């Protein structure tokens, strides 16, 4: 190995990388917040909704879970401008790739979050619902006051793990040439002819953040089920 490292390149790239990191964080935060919200709605529709609605959500979840996220991102990337032009009535509207990326991430991740919420609700013993109903609560009251709070407690580790998966997934917006953390790194690395240093740096940053999250999820899991080693 006779590669001459030049780590100073990271410092020079710093402002540019930080901009990329901001984009990544924006994708992450919006993806998690809206993803969990939509995922919860989907889970409730699927478990408690009338049959046609339940079937529809099942179809939605299966669709998004069976195609690669990259394909979803492409879908929105080519569809978004057309759709937005129709919606706004402005035929010359330009729509940045960020909207396509956000829409793809939120809608696809909601399908994964839905499965987690469903498992979380399923983990609450069925006696709880029966107890609520026998106390005279409605199903909705039971759900919001008793079932969901317990469910969310049980599924915090899974939600955190999915959040880390989402963070890793955000890097895929590279395929529509966005300047997220990875995209910025690729560009700056190629400009300076220093992809080696830049990629290693990016890998280390992702590793540190994701490991911390994984560790935290494991710790929460242990705290929730002290019985299991």
């Amino acid at each position: 190995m006779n590669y001459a490292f030049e780590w100073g390149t990271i410092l020079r790239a710093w402002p540019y990388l930080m901009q990329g990191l901001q984009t990544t964080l924006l994708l992450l935060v919006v993806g998690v917040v809206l993803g969990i919200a939509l995922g919860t709605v989907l889970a409730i529709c699927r478990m408690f909704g009338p049959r046609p609605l339940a079937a529809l959500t099942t179809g939605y979840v299966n669709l998004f879970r069976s195609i690669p996220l990259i394909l979803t991102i492409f879908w929105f990337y080519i569809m978004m401008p057309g759709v937005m032009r129709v919606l706004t009535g402005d035929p010359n509207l330009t729509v940045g790739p960020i909207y396509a990326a956000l829409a793809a991430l939120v809608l696809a991740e909601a399908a994964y979050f839905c499965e987690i919420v469903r498992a979380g609700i399923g983990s609450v013993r069925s006696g709880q619902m029966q107890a609520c109903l026998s106390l005279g609560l409605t199903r909705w009251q039971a759900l919001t006051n008793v079932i969901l709070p317990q469910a969310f407690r049980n599924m915090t580790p899974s939600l955190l793990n999915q959040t880390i998966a989402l963070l890793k997934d955000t890097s895929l917006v590279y395929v529509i040439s966005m300047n997220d953390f990875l995209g910025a790194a690729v560009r700056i690395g190629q400009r300076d002819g220093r992809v080696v240093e830049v990629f290693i740096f990016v890998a280390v940053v992702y590793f540190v953040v994701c490991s911390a999250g994984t560790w935290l999820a494991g710790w929460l899991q242990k705290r929730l089920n002290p019985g299991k080693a």
Partner: protein
Amino acid sequence: MNYSWDWLIFLQPSITGEGAYGYLLLRGLLWTLAISSLSWVLAVAIAAAVGIARTLDFVVLRFLAATYVNIFRNIPLLVQLFLWYFVVPELLPTAWGTAIKRMDPLLNQYFTVVVGLTLYTAAKASEHIRSGIESVSAGQKQAGRSLGLTTAQSYRYVILPQAMRIVIPPMTSDFLNVFKNSSVALTIGLLELAGATYQLSEFSAQPFEFFAAATLIYMMITYTVILLMRAVERCTRIAGSLGAAS
């Protein structure tokens, strides 16, 4: 929107002169299958070894296995792929690096994706194998040992057959993930199904037909795999146990 659908586009020759659009899409599908099947087989082998290593009483082995899993699980696949493709050849001895760069580019891309995808998937899958093994009760392990079985024998005849049943569903979703994740190949220029779809939709100016076709193909394969694995699960179900019923 006045998009004019043209489903016959698949039969028309591509503007690149390489053959019909449908044929090019199919070629993408074949790459997807070639990448995911090889990566899957290799990943299962590595995952089994790593997962078992993490349950043994051999501290060094356990530590090494855990380190591998933590590193490969916590870096995005795309970043790993770029490391293998752009960084590793630079860091290898010069002769090796040049040898890699002189390889047929398509083979180079193919093997790079397989390496990246295999190691990424194996790290995750090994966790499933480990928890499958751990879910076999301590009593079963003691029963095996108290009959005089060696460690290898108890894994072979008592623990793994029981763990396997538990491991099949998560391994199915691991396979589906490999299948979907193989789409990262397009980022280093290997046009598998998703990449081909995107490229052809630009060439033909009929994007929606291609995207719809690709979506259907992905869904069909996913369902085939799920149905297959359900059948496998039924075959491996243990008589009288409720666990595998759902």
